[in-house]
C-alpha cells in the first residue's frame, strides 16, 4: 500500500489497443465502413451523393429516436412505446387542429405536452412500482396503439387522419420539421441536420455534462448511484421524457411530410431503435454505450435497408441481414463487457 507512492509517473494518457476496443462504437464503426465499401462495390447507383443523402434521410428518421433510446438504455431502461409514440404525437396534433379548426402550432405544442406526459408517466410508473420498464412500456405501447386507432376512428370516421395541409401554420411547421434543400444533385432533408444536432448534444451530455455521469451511473448500478447522492428517479424519468420528446419530433416530421397519418403505423419501429442502439455498442443491461454508437447503428440500418434496393437484390433478405448484424453486435458487446470488468490482482 505504501510502495506505490514511490512508483514514478510515466505517462498521463496511454493509447492501448484494449482501451480502443473497449470504446462502445468502435465495432459498429468498423462494420459501417465495411458495409459502406461493400455497397459501393456492388451497387453502381449507390455511388452518388443523391443516394448517400437518401440513405442519411432514412437513417435520420430512425436515428433521431434511436439516440434517445440509446441514452435510455445506457440508463438501464427500455421504452417499447417509442415506436408508436411518433404516430400518437402526429395524430394528437393533426386531429385536434382539424377537429377544432385551430392553428397547427397550437396542436404541435399540445402534442409535445402530451408526449412529455406519456414519457413522464412511463418513468414515474417504472420508478414508483419497481416493475421492469419492459413491462410498463409494453403496456403504454398497447394503450397508445389502441388509442391511436380508436380515437382516430371516432374523430375522423376512418383509420387515417385527415389532410391538414390547408390549415394555418402548415407551411411554417413544414419548414421546421420536414423541409429539404438541394446540395449539388442531392436533396438534403432537414431531419438529417436535426439528427446530427441531437447526436452531438447527446454525445456531449454523456461525455462532458454532470447529467451524463449520472446516466452511466443509474444504468451501471442504480443503488450505488443512489448511495452517493445521484438523483436516480429524476435522471431516469428525464431519460424517458427525452425519448418521448424525440418521438414527438419524428412524429412532427411524418405529419408535416405526409399530411396524413395511418393510425396503425409505427408498430415494430421500437425494435429498430433498440437494434440501432445495440448495434452501436450499447449494453442491453445498461451502463455502457454512447450516442455516436447509436447514430452509427441507425446509419448501418439505413444503409443496409436501401443498399439492398440499390444493388437490385430481393429486399426480403433485409430482415435476415439485420438479425445477423444484431447477433454479431451482441456477441461483441458481451466480449467487451467481460474485458472491461475482469478483475485484476492489485
Amino acid at each position, binding site marked *: 500500500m505504501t510502495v506505490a*507512492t514511490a512508483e514514478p509517473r510515466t505517462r498521463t494518457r496511454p493509447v492501448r489497443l484494449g482501451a480502443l476496443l473497449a470504446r462502445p462504437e468502435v465495432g459498429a464503426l468498423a462494420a459501417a465502413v465495411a458495409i459502406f465499401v461493400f455497397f459501393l462495390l456492388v451497387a453502381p447507383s449507390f455511388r452518388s451523393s443523391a443516394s448517400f443523402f437518401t440513405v442519411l434521410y432514412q437513417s435520420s428518421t430512425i436515428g433521431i429516436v434511436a439516440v434517445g433510446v440509446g441514452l435510455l438504455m445506457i440508463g438501464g431502461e427500455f421504452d417499447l412505446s417509442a415506436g408508436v409514440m411518433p404516430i400518437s404525437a402526429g395524430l394528437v396534433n393533426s386531429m385536434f387542429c382539424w377537429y377544432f379548426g385551430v392553428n397547427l402550432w397550437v396542436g404541435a405544442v399540445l402534442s409535445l405536452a402530451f408526449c412529455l406526459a406519456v414519457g413522464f408517466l412511463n418513468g414515474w410508473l417504472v420508478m414508483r412500482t419497481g416493475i421492469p420498464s419492459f413491462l410498463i412500456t409494453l403496456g403504454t405501447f398497447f394503450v397508445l396503439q389502441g388509442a391511436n386507432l380508436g380515437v382516430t376512428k371516432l374523430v375522423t370516421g376512418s383509420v387515417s387522419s385527415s389532410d391538414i395541409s390547408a390549415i394555418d401554420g402548415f407551411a411554417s411547421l413544414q419548414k421546421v420539421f420536414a423541409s429539404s434543400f438541394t446540395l449539388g444533385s442531392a436533396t438534403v432533408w432537414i431531419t438529417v441536420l436535426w439528427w446530427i444536432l441531437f447526436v452531438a448534444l447527446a454525445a456531449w451530455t454523456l461525455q462532458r455534462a454532470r447529467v451524463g455521469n449520472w446516466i*452511466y451511473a443509474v444504468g451501471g448500478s442504480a443503488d450505488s448511484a443512489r448511495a452517493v447522492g445521484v438523483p436516480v428517479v429524476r435522471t431516469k424519468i428525464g431519460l424517458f421524457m427525452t425519448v418521448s420528446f424525440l418521438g414527438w419530433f419524428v412524429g412532427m416530421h411524418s405529419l408535416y411530410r405526409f399530411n396524413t397519418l395511418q393510425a396503425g403505423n409505427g408498430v415494430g419501429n421500437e425494435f429498430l431503435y433498440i437494434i440501432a442502439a445495440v448495434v452501436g455498442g450499447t449494453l442491453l443491461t445498461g451502463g455502457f454505450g454512447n450516442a455516436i454508437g447509436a447514430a452509427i447503428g441507425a446509419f448501418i440500418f439505413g444503409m443496409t435497408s436501401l443498399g439492398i434496393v440499390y444493388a437490385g437484390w430481393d429486399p426480403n433478405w433485409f430482415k435476415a441481414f439485420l438479425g445477423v448484424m444484431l447477433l454479431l453486435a451482441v456477441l461483441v458487446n458481451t466480449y467487451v463487457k467481460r474485458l472491461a470488468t475482469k478483475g485484476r490482482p492489485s
Partner: protein
Amino acid sequence: MTDTLSEHADRGLRRGEQLVDLAGVGKNYGPIRALHGVDLHVRAGEVTCVLGDNGAGKSTLIKIISGLHPHTSGTLTVDGVERRLGSPREALDLGIATVYQDLAVVPLMPVWRNFFLGSELVAGRYPLAGMRIRDMRRIADEELRKMGITVADIDQPIGTLSGGQRQCVAIARAVYFGARVLILDEPTAALGVKQSGVVLKYIAAARDAGLGVVFITHNPQHAYLVGDHFVILKRGGTVLDAARGTVTLEDLTTQMAGGDELAELSRELERQ
C-alpha cells in the same frame, strides 16, 4: 497514505465530540419489526463497531443513518439537532457518507468518474454545464496515488481494480468530499486476509484523522483490531453495548457465536 485523510478531514472535528446519536431507534416495515430500541453513539475520532449475524438488523440500522429509510420510532440526532433523513443526499449534506460492501462503485465507469460521482465539478450552474474533466481526472489520480492505489489508467473501468482497492477508493471518495461520519457496511466481508488488512488500516487512518466511523461487520477479530466501542445486535435489538476497555475479544466472539444460548447448548450437549 493518510495524507488525503488528514488533508480533507474536517478541521473542526474535536476528538470525542458527539456527531450522531441514536436513542431508542426502531423501524417497522408494515407489521414486521426490523429494529427496536437501539442506542448508538458516534463520536469523532472513534470507531463504533456494529456486530451481528445475518438478519440481526444491521442493514436496517445503516439505512436509517444513511437516509435510505427513515426510522419509525426513537430519535436520531445529528450534531445536536434531531433529524429524520429522507434521502441519501440529505445524509451526505450533513456529512454522513455510507460505503456499501457490494455497491461501493459503478463497475463499468472509469475510475475518475466513480470518484466524483454525485459530486461532479461543474463549470457553471446552468443545467447542461460541462464538467471540469481535466481537473477531475487530475484530482482523482493524485488522491489515489497518495493513498497508494496505482491505476495504470485513470480512465479504466473501476471494475478492473481489486475488491480491496475499490473499497478504499470509495472510502477515500467519501472523505475527500467532506464526510464527518463514515458508515462502512461489511467492507472486509468479501476480501482475503491481505486485502482486509489494507481496508482495516484505512479505517484506522480515518479514525486518526478525526472522523466518526461506524464499522459494520460480522467478524469480531476485525472489529476488535480497530474498534473503540462495540454494539452487538440480535433479532433487531441490542444485546451488548460496551466500550473497548470493558470487553475482551473472547466476550465478543462468544456473544457473536450465540452467547448464553451457546452456553446452554454446550451444557445440554455435555450431559449426553
